[in-house]
């Protein structure tokens, strides 16, 4: 089981989603993807993305206006 970290700080919509999607494509089921995003819309977007793609959002927090999300690839 691998763990990936994606630094999407500074990217604007839809950049973080594209980065997350590209990482999830090369990941295997059970792998963990951690992504850091400064685009404030991502907080809602990552939830919609997980719901749509069937991946699991296990953590979502915000620190110093940066959003940290942890996703488990299904």
């Amino acid at each position: 089981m691998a763990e990936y970290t994606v630094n999407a700080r500074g990217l604007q919509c839809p950049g973080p989603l594209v980065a997350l999607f590209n990482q999830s494509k090369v990941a295997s089921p059970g792998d963990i993807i951690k992504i850091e995003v400064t685009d404030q819309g991502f907080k809602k977007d990552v939830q919609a993305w997980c719901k749509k793609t069937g991946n699991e959002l296990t953590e979502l927090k915000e620190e110093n206006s940066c959003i940290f999300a942890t996703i488990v690839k299904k």
Partner: protein
Amino acid sequence: MADSGKKTIIMFSGELDKAMAGFIIANGAAAMGDEVTMFFTFWGLNLLRKDEKVPVKKGFLEGMFGWMMPRGAGKPGLSKMNFGGMGKMMMKKIMKDKNVNSLPELLASAQAMGVKMIACTMSMDVMGIRKEEMIDGLEFAGVATYLGEADQAGVNLFI
């Protein structure tokens, strides 16, 4: 509601702001795992032209049209507050400062994610745009092809 897993977008307009909206939605949908088809017609076709001039044989009017219209995704101005290009320059600067992807970047990203782009052959004919003048990776078809795709899509936009 069932998830169609498919989106279709008609790119009719050629202005920077409108085209950006279309390409951001296309990129977002592709990133959500959807199959996306963009159908380019009329002014939208100019977004798919190569930046450089391609020597092709054209009639006088076709040549004039081709000369007057913007070539490629890096050229178009804004639909509002363009002020002869000043508005466009300001918008481009702000977007660059704020790290928003440019239109050519969004186009390349959409293509890389497998967004299908169809150029309308009828409007190409009317506007005198030849296949040789268009970027690679396009399909050339008409309204029936687009409608066939739209039938399966859960979202269909006209931009």
